[in-house]
């Protein structure tokens, strides 16, 4: 009798282990690579902004630098700048493209870094992922306790690494937003003027390090 009971427990135990392993595998398969890439970056960003040691006033510059580097590894600013400029991109020389990308990156960093540093425990939920060869889109929710914001990351595989080239917040695309604005400026003025405005704009944005 006792032997039979032991056998039964063994079956339950092994069954549980196999079931668990299968579930684990299914979860990994669902998560996929693009979502994993985004999750790794967001988790690392949250670790930095939540780190009490880095919150000290004398280490805030260091913290900002860490965040910029981390986000720069995941975000493909060159691709974002290129797509935002649209047809004008092909008409510009490699030097102009390089300078434009640098200005665009500076504008992006200055516009958004302050909001990231102001992180206050918002929860990020990973909803689903669309995968189409070298392109993918990861759907997330950011829940701040009062409201839920839809944020989708559009990624493209660049030398085996998934890099973000567009962010869609509540159904509106970042690239489309800048493309429309750049188009308006280019209809009236030259590319040189657009570059100048971009430089001035990012120089004028004050992104004070939050207390």
């Amino acid at each position, binding site marked *: 009798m006792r032997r039979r009971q032991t056998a039964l427990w063994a079956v339950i135990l092994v069954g549980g282990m196999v079931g668990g392993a299968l579930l684990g595998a299914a979860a990994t398969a669902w998560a996929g690579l693009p979502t994993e890439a985004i999750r790794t970056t967001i988790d690392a960003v949250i670790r930095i902004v939540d780190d009490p040691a880095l919150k000290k006033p004398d280490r805030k510059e260091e913290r900002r630098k860490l965040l910029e580097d981390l986000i720069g590894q995941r975000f493909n600013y060159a691709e974002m700048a*290129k*797509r935002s400029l649209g047809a004008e*991109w092909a008409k510009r020389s490699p030097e102009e493209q390089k300078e434009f990308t640098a200005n665009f990156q500076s504008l992006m960093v200055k516009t958004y870094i302050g909001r990231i540093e102001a992180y206050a425990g918002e929860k990020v939920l990973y909803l689903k992922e669309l995968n189409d060869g070298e*392109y993918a889109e990861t759907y997330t929710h950011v829940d701040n306790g009062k409201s839920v914001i839809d944020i989708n990351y559009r990624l493209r595989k660049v030398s085996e690494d998934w890099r973000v080239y567009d962010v869609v917040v509540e*159904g509106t*695309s970042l690239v*489309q937003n800048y*493309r*429309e604005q750049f188009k308006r400026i280019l209809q009236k003025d030259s590319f040189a003027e657009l570059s100048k405005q971009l430089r001035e704009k990012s120089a004028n944005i004050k992104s004070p390090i939050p207390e």
Partner: protein
Amino acid sequence: MKDTKLELIVGVFVLVGIAALTYMAVKLGKLEVIGGDQVEIRAEFDSVAGLKSGATVEIAGVQVGQVTAIGLNGERALVSFTVTPGVMLYEDAIASIKTRGLIGDKYVSLSPGGALDALPPGGKIRETESGIDFEKAISEFIHGNVK
């Protein structure tokens, strides 16, 4: 002899009338009789709520085509539309669902792009915007959030 001539005139008149009616029906119904020279493009959206077949497709406010079919692909909406030949679209084109005015008709607005390669006929626009759901925003505003 006189009767034959009169009947002929009446016959021609009726034929012209039918032709005019057909033309009107096609124009008013926005049907494409000879759609061979139109370029077909597809785009997938998260939601196309309110967009109807026959809705206009615009670039910079100028009509360049119309929606021919709306269907489902998995849980996303697959929209097919025609574009006038000669209108250049690229791989980085963005298709957005827009509303005319605050509560007007929905239409598709295209931003052609140009930083990447040209989009082939029958191609699919990858970048899409479903736009802000006004009803959702208004209902959250009126009824408040759960939290």
